[in-house]
């Protein structure tokens, strides 16, 4: 039994989207972004967010300060940005890539929310006067978040590729959750499955 879900559509067999063919040189755009980023890091972030400078005098002795390493990294990025300006071509990120990334992140955020809150919400609904923190070492409470989160993430991602939510995807997700419980929870008393280290 399968059910169609409204997920974002990707054109099939269209190849990776790129800006090839347009007048914009992708490497030039990337180079400008990198230069801007490097300058912000070098001129704003590092001076405002490090305690010592590039070189620091402590008790009349000069030492390398905490700003040295990130400054060199930013200079390296600046050089790479300048080199990118003179390097033609290169692939670019397209809106389709960003939409894909947003979709993947949406599934992961939903999965993380389920992992984090399924157990506490179920405990609040079904167990009077006992907060989830006291149940986090008790089956099945401690597994609820992982199971629902696995279904959202694993079955969700399979559904995105298959363009339908399938029973097979959900079964795979349940098997993965079961496997993780078998690997981490049953043999080890001191290991905590998500989200039990945070509650």
């Amino acid at each position, binding site marked *: 039994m399968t059910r169609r879900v409204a997920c974002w559509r990707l054109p099939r067999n269209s190849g990776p989207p790129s800006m090839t063919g347009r007048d914009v040189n992708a490497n030039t755009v990337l180079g400008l972004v990198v230069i801007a980023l490097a300058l912000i890091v070098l001129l704003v972030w590092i001076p405002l*967010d490090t*305690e010592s400078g590039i070189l620091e005098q402590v008790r009349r002795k000069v030492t390398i300060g905490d700003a040295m*390493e990130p400054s060199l990294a930013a200079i390296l990025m600046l050089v790479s940005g300048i*080199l990118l300006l003179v*390097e033609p071509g290169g692939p670019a990120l397209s809106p389709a890539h960003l939409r*894909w990334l947003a979709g993947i992140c949406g599934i992961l955020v939903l999965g*993380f929310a389920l992992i984090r809150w399924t157990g506490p919400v179920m405990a609040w609904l079904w167990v009077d006067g006992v907060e989830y923190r006291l149940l986090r070492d008790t089956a099945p409470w401690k597994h609820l978040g992982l199971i629902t989160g696995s279904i959202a993430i694993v079955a969700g991602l399979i559904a*995105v590729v298959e363009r339908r939510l399938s029973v097979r995807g959900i079964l795979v997700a349940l098997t993965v959750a079961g496997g993780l419980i078998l690997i981490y929870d049953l043999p080890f008393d001191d290991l905590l499955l998500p989200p039990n280290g*945070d509650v």
Partner: protein
Amino acid sequence: MDLLDYAWAGVLAVFQGPVLFSIFGLSISATIAMVLFGFLNGIFVGATPGLGGPMAMAISLPILISIFGFSSDALLPVMGCLIGIMKGATVGGAVPAILFNTPGTPDAYLTTLDGYPMAKRGEARRALKVAHFSSASGDTFSDLVLILCAPFLATLVERYLDLPEKTALLILSLSFIAAVIGGSVAKGLLSAGLGIFVAAIGTGEDFYPRLSLGTDMLAQGFPAVAVILGVLILGEVFRGLEDLARSGYGRPTLPGHAPPGPPGNDKIRHLPWQDRRPLLPHIARSAMIGTAVGALPGIGSTLAATLGHAAGKRRHARKAPDARAFGTGAPEGIAATEAANSAVSGANLIPVLSLGIPGNAAAVFLILAADSIGGFNPGPAVFRYNQDAVNPELIIAFGLFATMLLANLINWTVGGTVMRSMAIMTRIPKHILLPVVLMLTLTSIYVQETRMAALWFVIGFGILGYVMRRLDISPLPFVIAFILGGRLEETARQAYAATGNDPFFLATSPISAIFVVMSISVIVLAQYRRPTTAS
């Protein structure tokens, strides 16, 4: 203790180390069991298109640390398992390449050129035996070179390089990696610069954790496991899923993919000597090429396979013009490719063990394992020894050599049989495998870090890894620079202090000056020589 005592102690640490279980009163060492498990697991993942050695190492590492803990007793079982995976994956990659024209690992692509035509002729079994024989030979050769060269190189480094020279050597390694990996020097530098910058966040010597924006979340820095797994594994999963969604998940993604060939009807039990003899010159040449390539940080097994195949093709056309040509199902073509890509796996530990510089993704995970467990810091100091004091790191180093030879022994004895039984792995759909890998990775990281913040970090770095791949920026310089960033800063601080606060400490010694000039030259030369790729 002299050197032979250390070598023997290393062997004993493998065979008489912590016991995993006993059978009929016979104690089975955890290290031996884990090398065997890792090797079989490696063949399994290598034979599965979409997985690969680094991915399996990434997933296994947190599980292994959970099992064996953080004591020094854990080092050999954990690293032995990772070494087994690394070696097994190289062997396993040839299976789908030969049987289904789909390389299990990127470096097995050239194996398809001769392997699949042989399979189509009904010689699949023979092709697999040729691949296994060549792979095991190349791997063994490169391990022997590692065992001979790494201590020698490390001793040279310790004897002749002081702090300024070591700083310059780290700079040279980073610039070399940035210049040679990927298609653009600018992008290599960008990747390395980002890696060093990320390594700087939340660290430093001041009371205030630098670049932490005043937040507690960044004040501890990024967990190494979240950064490395995010960029290397999640980035690849995000890209792989998108490619599958675009191409139609049921269809193969590789150009030239063909339906499976007929099952091998060649019932040969052993590869006869007359079949092996013509392969030997190709195996010898490719093993040397693969070892030389593997010893240089940043140059992967795919280049080794390409060079080995090209060199073999030229010799084959000249010496045997009447024989079957490369690319049309010549066993010599499989031998040249497989010996070269397998010879990389041992040699790429030369820079890791002698200099502490990881050269590829597999080496990154070995360093990560050593860092996570503690008690072993890969680098020249590992091979420091004198008669009066015991250096436990040297025992571990010899133990690692013993695990590599043990993995080779397993490869020669059961590797071929296991490899040939893994054809079924190609049937696992990649679009199901990748979400499973993602969930396993997330859970493994949580178990190790025990906070949801680590999962957000790993997703953030996964997005970075995806963007880098889409922009054709190799993530490997980022990861290597992230690992080396802290060490580079620490060595530079010590060198600066040791030279009496000389701001030109990198230029005062001839060796460090040469290294600095080489660092700049390698970037300039690579930029100058690289063909422009205007679209």
